[in-house]
């Protein structure tokens, strides 16, 4: 490219506009997503939760270029930490969320400290190894903490007079000291709450949505800050940065911890909306999924990772539920023979075949739009812009 590329200006004003549009879009999702069949709380919660996961992942991968293949470990740790808070102290979600973020941060500090001794593919392999180790430990020696294959769940309270007898059987009975101290009466297995407001259905979604908006705002501040600029410089030319007097290791470790804490928050919200934590959340496929989300939406952009997360979760939940009967109805206007052929072909891409559609979409994006969907949008934006400026704007959109 011989032409001069002008960097896109991100003023404080344009950031506020972006933030307001983002918040409005998230909060109105139950209405705006209704036409595509995605407006039910369970799916909307997933959009928000995996959006947080991907936004946090992007702080590491998008800004520094360090590709972690083990971020699901922090997601899993966040879930376990939250469920333990529910079991031991209270069904209120605030302590659980805070505790999960802190635990995931400490976990990220340990894994990051070791993994960041290497860069490139070796860093990726180290993070993958740690995540798989966590996954396998959760199934084996850590069973007293994770309840192995069954998964850690919120259970009935231990009989109040015999609580001490159950200290070693805590995966099967709960104590909830704080709730008990406040005299909360439980009927059956309780569900999570925010000071009495039940965290299921739409209230659960709005809690996740507020967390997403906060997470997005913090990611935006980081991206525009001094710290963010140093992370981008690491991605651009780490060697130069070292000779410029910057100690890159603590910058990388801080970015790794922040991104681990985002994953912990996401894991915690998974437990908030469904108080059950299983080890499969830490499997490498879950780590790979967040990489796909980020690349699909646009690496290094602010909105892209959230968009990628939304699309993948949409495919996973909506495309996978379309079956032949639905297709028959859609194509019922065709003559019967043709209808059968069309249904046979399209059914490969929906239902069980949703992976195929997603895979094709991913290939198309990586080949034609290496900057992800966000690059596609900024290209469209340029085509339809009435008066293009004298200097073409950057292909590196940061919105």
């Amino acid at each position: 490219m011989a032409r001069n590329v002008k960097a896109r200006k991100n003023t404080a004003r344009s950031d506020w506009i972006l933030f307001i549009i983002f918040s409005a879009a998230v909060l109105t999702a139950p209405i705006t997503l209704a036409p595509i069949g995605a407006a039910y709380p369970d799916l909307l919660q997933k959009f928000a939760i995996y959006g947080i996961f991907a936004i946090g992942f992007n702080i590491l991968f998008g800004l520094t270029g360090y590709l972690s293949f083990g971020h699901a470990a922090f997601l899993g740790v966040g879930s376990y930490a939250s469920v333990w808070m529910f079991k031991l102290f209270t069904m209120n979600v605030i302590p659980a969320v805070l505790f999960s973020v802190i635990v995931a941060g400490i976990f990220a500090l340990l894994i990051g400290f070791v993994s960041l001794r290497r860069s490139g593919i070796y860093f990726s392999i180290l993070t993958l190894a740690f995540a798989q180790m966590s996954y396998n430990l959760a199934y084996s020696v850590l069973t007293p903490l994770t309840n192995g294959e069954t998964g850690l769940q919120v259970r009935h309270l231990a009989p109040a007079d015999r609580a001490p007898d159950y200290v070693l059987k805590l995966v099967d009975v709960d104590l909830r000291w704080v709730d008990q101290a406040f005299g909360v009466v439980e009927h059956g297995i309780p569900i999570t709450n925010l000071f009495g407001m039940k965290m299921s259905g739409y209230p659960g979604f709005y809690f996740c949505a507020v967390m997403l908006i906060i997470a997005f705002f913090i990611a935006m501040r980081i991206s525009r800050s001094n710290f963010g600029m140093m992370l981008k410089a690491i991605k651009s030319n780490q060697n130069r940065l070292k000779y410029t007097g910057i100690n890159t290791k603590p910058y990388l470790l801080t970015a790794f911890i922040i991104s681990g804490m985002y994953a912990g928050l996401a894991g915690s919200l998974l437990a908030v909306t469904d108080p059950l934590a299983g080890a499969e959340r830490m499997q490498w496929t879950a780590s790979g999924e967040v990489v796909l989300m980020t690349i699909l939406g646009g690496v290094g952009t602010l909105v892209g990772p959230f968009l990628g997360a939304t699309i993948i979760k949409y495919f996973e939940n909506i495309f996978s539920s379309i079956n032949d009967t639905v297709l028959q109805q859609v194509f019922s206007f065709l003559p019967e023979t043709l209808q059968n052929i069309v249904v046979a072909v399209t059914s490969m891409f929906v239902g069980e075949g949703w992976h195929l559609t997603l895979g094709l979409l991913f290939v198309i994006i990586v080949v034609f739009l290496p900057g992800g969907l966000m690059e596609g949008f900024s290209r469209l934006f340029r085509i339809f812009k009435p008066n293009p400026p004298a200097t073409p704007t950057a292909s590196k959109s940061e919105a």
Partner: protein
Amino acid sequence: MSILEVSNVNKRFGGLKALNEVQLSVKEGSVHAIIGPNGAGKSTLLNCFVGRLTPDSGTVMFNGTSLLGLEPHEINQTGVSRVFQTPEIFEDLTLLDNVMIPAFAKKDGAYRFNAWHRVSTRTDVRDEANALLEEVGLADQAGLICSTLSRGDKRRLEMAMCLIQHPKLLLLDEPTAGMSRADTNNTIDLLKKIGERGITKIIIEHDMHVVFSLATTVSVLAQGTVIAEGTPDEIKGDPRVQEAYLGGAHL
């Protein structure tokens, strides 16, 4: 008063003795050129100053402290900046960011966690960076992404990145390598202009035109040893230097 004191430095790569008992003393405020034929050990010596290589033996003292065993960023923080053989800049960032980053490294130290305030709120650093871009003649391109700059412009940008740190010692590794005559002359002018700030400079160079237009002292390195040292005029007439450059290469 010497700012950099190199004594008895040895460096071996397998069977090759790259540096052999190198002695060098760089005076404060001088422009010290290190010349020598290919493979004489010039770049190896420079890498020993910046922490990329550690000598097998010997000492490198800068302003009374040893540079050996320090990380590159620690050496930079003591006041040594470096210009690379091929311009090393942050290609994906804007020119302004490129100059602001070293300024922050100087002001805030090797690590400072400031993830909340916008970079643009630090107007003091931005103004300084803009002034320096103006000085090297790149002010009108401040908002551009660097990857599209010409090589000569990248070199000037790299100079600005070093100058904003107000280094005590500036190391230049073949600053005009691969440049056109016009770009070379521009670089010489720029270096002369920098010279007015009184920064001590070490230049490694092949181009004798550059060396003799800038240097106040010249050291000649051949086969890992300093074989001659003096003013440019003394070096021009030194038979040992001619031997090293012409005789050694052709016999």
